[in-house]
């Protein structure tokens, strides 16, 4: 088990290295940041001094190595536009996105998985057919449209829930969280609901497919022959057996929601990282773009690592250093 973890950590290191090179070269290719940094009518001297100051006169590989050196010390550079450290900037926005993403994947899981298991257990019942029809909607209706309809219905017409910003927050570890106050929860409700629909639909379909397959297996037949009730079979046998694909999708969805909740954050003016990256792209704020992408890559690698370790928890056959 320990060997497995070490192996995975080394792999993660390589992924991060590859990702940093890709991001650096990719953003380098966008254009010259000097045009953004200084006014067009600055003198040649100032121009050259600025280029030297940022090391832009050096070859690409030297710039990359310097960037990598700073990265390893936790220095992601300073925002060109706001002139504050990128790390601080991203971390100040991350909690908002983190709780939004977590809320949406958790709703998706706790609602979607039971519904999907039921739909797989009784595929012919009208309730299951309704569940499946609704899940098709979850897949196919665009997020921005659902967001607007939610605002129109619950915020404008019914006036039950607020439609923008975060509301009251509580400070923990120096950052604000809104899920700990009633007011914050009210602000969280609509964007989380909006974001969760796709995940809900996906988890419903995945758990339904898994359940249908497992229900026909000899494991379930044998459990039935031992006199187990269907509820026990679903809860103890089926849920465990379908959990590996569910955990995979849960992890991937959590990661991509963290990184790309842009549309929902924009519609609900949620002050998260999605809005930050859009702003930094429009202003060509290179350090913020690079730093953000590196952090996103790091988040993905971490989530994947956690997912892999969860596999080992869920399936004893993976624990003995054997690979799938």
């Amino acid at each position, binding site marked *: 088990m320990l060997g497995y973890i070490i192996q995975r950590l080394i792999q993660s290191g390589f992924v991060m290295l590859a990702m940093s090179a890709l991001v650096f070269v990719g953003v380098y290719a966008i254009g010259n940041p000097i045009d953004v940094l200084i006014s067009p009518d600055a003198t040649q001297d100032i121009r050259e001094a600025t280029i030297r100051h940022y090391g832009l006169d050096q070859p690409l590989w030297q710039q990359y190595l310097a960037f990598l050196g700073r990265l390893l010390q936790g220095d992601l550079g300073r925002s060109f536009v706001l002139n504050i450290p990128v790390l601080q900037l991203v971390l100040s926005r991350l909690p908002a996105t983190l709780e939004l993403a977590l809320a949406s994947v958790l709703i998706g899981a706790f609602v979607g998985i039971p519904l999907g298991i039921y739909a797989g257990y009784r595929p012919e019942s009208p309730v299951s057919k309704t569940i499946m029809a609704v899940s098709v909607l979850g897949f196919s209706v665009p997020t921005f449209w659902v967001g607007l309809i939610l605002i129109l219905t619950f915020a404008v017409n019914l006036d039950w829930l607020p439609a923008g910003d975060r509301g009251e927050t509580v400070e923990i570890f120096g950052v604000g969280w809104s899920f700990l106050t009633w007011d914050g929860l009210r602000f969280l409700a609509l964007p989380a609901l909006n974001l969760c629909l796709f995940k809900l639909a996906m988890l419903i379909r995945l758990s339904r497919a898994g359940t249908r397959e497992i229900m026909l297996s000899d494991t379930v037949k044998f459990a*039935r*022959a*031992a*006199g187990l009730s269907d509820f026990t079979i679903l809860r103890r046998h089926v849920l*465990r057996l379908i959990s590996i694909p569910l955990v995979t999708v849960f992890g991937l969805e959590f990661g991509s929601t963290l990184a790309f909740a842009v549309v929902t954050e924009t519609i609900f003016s949620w002050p998260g990282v999605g809005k930050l990256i859009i702003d930094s792209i429009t202003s060509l704020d290179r350090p913020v773009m690079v730093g953000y992408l590196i952090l996103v890559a790091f988040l993905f690698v971490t989530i994947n690592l956690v997912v892999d370790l969860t596999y080992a928890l869920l399936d004893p056959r993976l624990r003995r250093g054997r690979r799938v």
Partner: protein
Amino acid sequence: MSKALLQVRDLRTHFETRAGTIKAVDGISFTLERGEILGLVGESGSGKSVTGFSLIGLLDAPGRIAGGSVLFDRQELVGLSQSEMRKLRGKRIAMIFQDPAATLNPVLTIGQQMAMAVQAHGGGGDGAALALAARSLSRVGIPDAAARLNAYPHEFSGGMRQRVAIAIALLHEPELIIADEPTTALDVSIQAQILAEMKMLAQGSGTALIWISHDLAIVSSLADRVIVLYLGRIVEYGPVRDVLRAPLHPYTRGLLDSLPALAAPGQKLMQIPGSTPSPLNVPPGCPFAPRCSHATELCRSEPPGVGDERHGAFCHHPLNASGGPNA
């Protein structure tokens, strides 16, 4: 008759498919006494497994019992509700399957799975359930049973896994165990061990056993009586010695001739000509007639009746005791 443990009368199990109705079990009758071992023999598609699943009420859709009666300890099982049936399953009627690698849940420990089976019928707290599980494991010859409860199925060998499955079936000391080819997936040496132990366990606890197999040789070493199935119907039944020594039905004769264990060394193995017809299109008379060398016009038009109570064959022209005229 009245004290028979199981009394099956004219059992019919049908599968409604798009192509038509498949009569997987087409009018089977037999009785089983307490503690008796009955072999149910037939090729793939003969309806032997479906018979087993019909008895325990675990037919997959679209299968359903279309007619007949199953009296278990004088209780009618056909038409019993799922929850009533569930109370019997595992408690009084247990079932063992062919492939223990597929029946045991790979992600739960043996102890968890056995505790679930105990608690499905009351069984009290986890401690009591695990103690019962450990006792059952040692009964089937698993050493260091209490410690092995924490092991997962993949940590056992194939034979040991099947022993675990048997231990689960034995947990509540059922009156009837239906064993669906439980040794087919095992090595021959392990097979022999398990057969011997099953026989001992059944005799020791007075459990009746229905042993479903395609292998007459296995059944002959284990069973008291045997029933040979073909296309969902009984073709021959009787005490295992009589059926093996003097088969009455040409199909049984064919099965015996194709057994390597019973053939003389160097002699070519016989095989039954032709193949099993589609269950959608069962011949009108004797189902075996198209493949039978003795078949006459009568066989092709009229379903055969049966002769003797003890050992009989559904055949218009049963073979005489002196041997098979197949040559």
